């Protein structure tokens, strides 16, 4: 990180300059990228309006497959969020220093991904405007929500997750916003002054700051595990073959961190190249993140094996039939593609050379993103397509509104991330300074 011969002050100033340079003067290509993403977002939103006006019939979901692409997207985006918290909170508690260069963008990713995910239950509702019925509030009919329902747990888990992630992100950013304030002028100075709350860097502020940061990390760690466990229980609490299994919670949590780590790579590699941050985000950092990716990939693969083993060892006819269907049935291509992306391809990371090849990591991360989306699709759709009663079997194929809304959500996510890179410091400046001083 810091060259030996460099004085602390010199290093800190050059660090500030490099990172604040990233905030300045967006090039036309940046605005073009924002425009493209905003375009997708707008198409997605317009499609949602169309779906509300026409009714849920425009989507492909129907009996027996009532949960399709929308729920797949929901699980996918919540999963993406998870590795942001892993990097910022869990690695903080473990004092893993390499997190410093990733944590700001990973936390931003978490907040935006949860925002995106939160839209899907509403899109899936059909009558989206009645979403507030999910909250326990005193009403004229004196009805309360059913706290035994996993869907209500979801409401509590996801809203808590969003709130805590946003606070965590903001608290860590206040000292850095004060640095941006120092360099800014005019209206920008006003805005950053307000955002940095009048931070001075006094002993008192740092003392309470360090404490709060640790507590928030300690809260976020069990929270991240609970959120995806609750999401997995949306499925595991039912009796549908392929869903009703106790391995679901750890299986989903590992998958979430796996997919999220891939998304961190997808976002951070171009960001590093465009803003020329190679000095700070080095190959060693990527090497370590690649190890996290490899580790979680192996856990996910193990879960795939256990799932099958449980089905065939459990002596449950429907479970057996279901897993055969998954491997050789209507959705077999998706299933084998998923295995290729999630289990086979990441094994190449055992080779050190490939772990340290940035371009390779970027391409691999795209494959993992696709693979993890497919995993959720396969789990959700194939289980519903063939459950107990043959009379009740069917095949689900998404229709165009589902595709358009999915693309729209990617547009929304990338648009927010692009705007973030130009509005807020992309690396945790004070943390890098602290590490360099040691």
């Amino acid at each position, binding site marked *: 990180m810091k060259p030996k011969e460099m*004085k*602390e*002050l010199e290093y*800190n*100033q050059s660090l500030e300059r490099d990172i604040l340079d990233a905030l300045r003067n967006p090039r036309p290509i940046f605005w073009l990228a924002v425009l493209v993403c905003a375009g997708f977002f707008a198409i997605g939103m317009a499609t949602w309006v169309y779906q509300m006006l026409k009714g849920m019939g425009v989507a492909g979901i129907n009996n027996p497959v009532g949960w399709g692409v929308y729920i797949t997207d929901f699980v996918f985006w919540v999963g993406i969020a998870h590795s942001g918290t892993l990097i910022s909170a869990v690695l903080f508690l473990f004092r893993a220093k390499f997190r410093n260069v990733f944590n700001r963008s990973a936390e931003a990713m978490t907040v935006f991904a949860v925002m995106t995910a939160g839209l899907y239950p509403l899109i899936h509702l059909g009558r989206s405007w009645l979403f507030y019925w999910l909250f*326990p509030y005193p009403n004229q009919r*004196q*009805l*309360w*929500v*059913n*706290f*035994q329902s996993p869907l*209500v*747990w979801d409401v*509590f*888990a996801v*809203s*808590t997750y969003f*709130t*805590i992630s946003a*606070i*965590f992100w903001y*608290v860590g950013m*206040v*000292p850095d916003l*004060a640095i941006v*304030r*120092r360099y800014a002028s005019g209206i920008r100075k006003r805005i950053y*002054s*307000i955002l*940095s*709350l*009048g*931070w*001075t*860097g*006094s*002993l*008192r*502020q*740092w*003392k*309470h*700051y*360090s*404490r*709060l940061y640790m*507590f*928030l990390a300690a*809260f976020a760690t*069990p*929270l991240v595990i*609970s959120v995806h466990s*609750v999401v997995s229980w949306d499925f595991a609490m039912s009796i549908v073959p392929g869903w009703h299994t106790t391995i679901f919670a750890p299986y989903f949590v590992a998958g979430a961190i796996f997919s999220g780590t891939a998304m961190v790579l997808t976002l951070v590699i171009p960001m590093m190249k465009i803003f020329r941050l190679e000095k700070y985000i080095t190959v060693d950092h990527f090497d370590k993140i690649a190890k996290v990716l490899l580790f979680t990939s192996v856990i996910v693969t193990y879960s795939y094996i256990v799932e099958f083993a449980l089905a065939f060892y459990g002596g449950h006819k429907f479970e057996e039939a279901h897993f055969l269907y998954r491997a050789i049935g209507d959705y077999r291509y998706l299933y084998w593609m998923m295995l290729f992306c999630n289990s086979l391809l990441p094994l190449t990371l055992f080779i050190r050379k490939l772990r340290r090849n940035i371009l390779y990591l970027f391409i691999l991360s795209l494959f993992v993103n696709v693979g993890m989306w497919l995993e959720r699709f396969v789990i959700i759709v194939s289980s519903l397509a063939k459950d107990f009663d043959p009379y009740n079997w069917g095949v689900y194929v998404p229709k165009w509104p589902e595709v358009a809304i999915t693309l729209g959500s990617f547009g929304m996510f990338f648009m927010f991330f692009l705007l973030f890179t130009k509005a807020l410091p992309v690396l945790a400046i*004070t*943390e890098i*300074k*602290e590490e360099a*001083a040691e």
Partner: protein
Amino acid sequence: MKNKFSFDEKHKFLHKLEELVKSGVSTENINIFTPYPVHEAEEILKVKPSAVRLFTLIGALTGLLFGFFLTIWTSLDWPLIRGGKPIVAIPAFIIVAFELTILFGGVISFIGYLFLSRLPNVEKISEPEEHGNQFVIHIENEGKK
């Protein structure tokens, strides 16, 4: 004697701080400003641990109790059997109580932090106080020593 010192490097700053404390300057009169948290300085000045933890504890306990209160009370308010389970189904309610423990704990810690570190500071927002990358020691009420 000067009452404001500023340094470019952490170790020089810590050295001076130690010297000042040894020379008998009351730690209460010393104000320091640093570009990142310096835990060694906290040890030298013997500052008390942050009271944020109190807010965290109270917030978390409130969330836990509220979680159980909300779920149990609403279930008893309209006692309808769902899925053949008991009206007060504790295992299911633990999940809601757990999430609310974290939600309340986190939010109240954050409020406590803002209160304890006197943020947002309106005066400093309109006229920011900058120390750049300097480690600053500021001694107040020098006469009283």
